[in-house]
């Protein structure tokens, strides 16, 4: 273990610079409630909720925590309880069977709070939009502040969107 730790110390960091802003995200972010975000400051606590995804989006959200993206250096932190969260990060086409639990998680969050819909499924149900077992995206149940499309969105796209929330 000493060898691994020692080498890690000397090799320098693997973490990559923040992804550049793109026009698309900038436009989305322009519509946010700036006053509310200012009250939250330079840090956001995020609760991820899978509302019926195939787990592809979860894989890329988990990747945000690896050393290359290192989500937490931006003041963005995934938290375990919605009661600690400022942002609900929702994936999946909003299955009927997850709609009640997702709503409860949102209601448990203190205001001001924001909902980010992740992936093509979170946007509008994606390939599952026509299913009678899905409600068709996050907005069917919750007020959505920001949508990060993709199937699944790459970690860099997720990072751009979430950093955009910080202003």
């Amino acid at each position, binding site marked *: *273990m000493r060898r691994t730790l020692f080498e890690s110390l000397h090799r320098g960091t*693997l973490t990559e610079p923040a992804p550049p802003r793109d026009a698309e995200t900038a436009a989305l972010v322009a519509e946010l409630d700036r006053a509310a975000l200012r009250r939250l400051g330079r840090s956001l606590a995020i609760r991820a909720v899978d509302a019926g995804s*195939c787990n592809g989006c979860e894989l890329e959200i988990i990747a945000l925590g*690896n050393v290359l993206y290192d989500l937490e250096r931006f003041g963005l932190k995934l938290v*375990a309880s919605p009661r600690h969260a400022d942002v609900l990060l929702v994936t999946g086409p909003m299955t009927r069977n997850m709609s009640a*639990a997702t709503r409860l998680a949102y209601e448990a969050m203190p205001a001001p709070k924001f909902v980010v819909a992740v992936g093509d499924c979170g946007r509008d149900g994606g*390939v599952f939009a026509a*299913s009678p077992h*899905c409600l068709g995206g996050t907005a069917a149940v919750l007020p959505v502040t920001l949508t990060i499309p993709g*199937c699944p969105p790459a970690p860099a796209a997720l990072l751009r969107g979430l950093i955009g929330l910080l202003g």
Partner: protein
Amino acid sequence: MIGSPMPPPCSADAPVMVDAAGWRAAGAALAAGADAALAAGQRVLVAVWAAPDDAGTRVHLATRRADGGDLAVIALRAEDGSYPSIGRHHPGAILMERALQDASGLRAEGLPDPRPWLDHERDFAFLPAEGEGLHRIPVGPIHAGTIEPGHFRFTVNGETIVRLEARLGYTHKGTLGLMRGTTPDAASRLAGRVSGDSTVAYAWAFARAVEAARELAVPRRASALRGVMAELERLANHAGDFGAICNDAGFPLINAHAGALRETILRQAEACFGHRLMMDRIVPGGVAADLAPASAASLRAELPSWLARFERLVDLYGKTASLQDRVVGAGRLAPDLARRLGCGGYVGRAAGQDFDARRNAPYPPYDRRMPDIPVLASGDVDARARIRSAEIRASVALIGDLLGDLMGDLAAGDIRAPLPESEAEAFGCALVEGFRGDVFAAVRLRGAVVADAFLRDPSWFLWPALEAVIEGNIVADFPLCNKSFNAAYSGCDL
């Protein structure tokens, strides 16, 4: 079994229609093999599902030989809304039949546990556990980490788990219903989203079922490319999960390095095939993305460094006493139970079940390039982690061999064969070894559309095993055991 000729593919002749007596006999024959050592030629359960047909609903039972992959499917027309339960004879079928009941409205006569599974509108009661000092811990459907949703109901005595019951169905999307009436290409996109971490395995299984139905031979270059994608998927998942298992044992250092390795693999996948998870790259008839020679060379050049990075972690894993203390002996699955439930993948192979579809039901390119298949007997968290590390070594070697073929005698050639136009109705099925175990796909084509399809995740046989092995462990070891199984939620919820 090794070196035996390729079994005939599951063809348009299947399924064989049987009457209720024939169906019962097939179910009872599965049970006979569950108790004793499986005799040669004994058949084991692959899947049980229902599909609408012109005259009502048919139930299907897919089996394979215990040591082989020669799939056989029988079907029974369900009269009066019911059929004889397979779960009555074979415990591994119970969850699938609970889902079947909810999805089709049929009643499985004699099913030991008829409670709803996918249908959350109906009343549901967890199994009782009674005794002095017991209390219950409800967890989920939303869990503390970023994972799929499902409910776990623990009954504990102090720190010790007396009973665990998993209740899933939260991510039920009606995927199979959406596949009906679409084209094979559109259905393939849905198949690739049954479980995102296994998108390559699912798309491949579905494509092979379609190809079996239409008796279509896939170009050899396409098969080799499919193999590279499937092994990259296996590598990325095994690397990520190996780290996550260590993380859940309180050792994040390995997780940090394994996470970086996983990211390296996914970036190579994107560079080679245009998508990090390689979604929609396998299509009926072949593949949708070719591998450029420069990408193939770059991937091949990187393989030794991946292995070197990983071996350092395995070394650290084995030498860290505090980590070994958590994983050795935890969540032990007895080989006998693994066999009774039909556990496949790294869970089964860590508990003495010597089955891997790539070897036992070989399909191209594995008929030419067969990986080493590791098997252990101890069945604990440590064995599952070690099976994964051995499979990482095997996959790296296999990718190297396949790339050699792709840059050698398969350097040129078609990557997709067109589906023959046919008005005929045809059935096909296939077994593909995903990272988690064997994925089964069945499809019935009618002309140019999918009449119905079924996809069976390996996790159907893992969830009951997880419930069983956790008994007697402490609550704090559940995340560790759960991660070492890494059963899919969406894969079963469909």
